[in-house]
């Protein structure tokens, strides 16, 4: 199943909170696409997902400031 989350309008700490809560809903094999801003979200969302045992399969650097991170369980 594919999940999608746009956190470009969120600020710390809700950027991380929303991703964490969405990750907790995922079953094995599910994929989450996160649209986020450069800076702290781009630096830390992929890192934090990996620390929680998820796989970051792609980081697509789009037109600044928005980027797409794909996380898989």
């Amino acid at each position, binding site marked *: 199943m594919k999940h999608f989350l746009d956190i470009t*309008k*969120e*600020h*710390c*700490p*809700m950027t*991380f*909170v929303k*991703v*964490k*809560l969405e990750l907790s809903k995922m079953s094995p094999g599910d994929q989450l696409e996160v649209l986020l801003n450069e800076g702290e979200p781009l630096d*830390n969302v992929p890192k*934090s997902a990996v*620390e*929680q*045992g998820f796989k970051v399969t792609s980081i697509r650097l789009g037109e600044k400031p928005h980027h797409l991170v794909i996380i898989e369980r």
Partner: protein
Amino acid sequence: MEKEELSIVCFSGEFDRVLAAFTLATGAAATNRDVSMFFTFWGLNVLKKKQDHSWIGKGILDRVFNFLMGGLNKLPLSRLNFGGVSPKLMTYMMRKNNVATLPELIEAAKQLGIRFIACEMAMHILGVKKEDLIDEVKEVIGVATFLDYSKEAKIIFI
């Protein structure tokens, strides 16, 4: 990977300090840390079921103290409180700038499974009972148990 642990002692009952505590707590829990929040003295006001001014306690002093302090809706700003107007203005500014408000952060903390702990001694002094506190408070403990829980944790006092 072993999780880092964070224990936050929430001593303050001031709006801005409580906001800082919940920002830190939710940010830490969302980035894979195990977080506990230990509420003592004025911090207990955050956890009261009754969020406005209410007569909690048995004795006259308990009741007056708790009435004057109030709950979550009555937390003062640590500076420039202006009789309680400033926290409302601050919440308005936060909403306007798309920043999570204090009730939103508390809700996020609950969803993230952050452990809410109440201080037994402070509750005893202020005449606050466990049933006066929100249901997410699962434990009422003393300092020795709290320190035992926090053996591997970083402790932050707010």
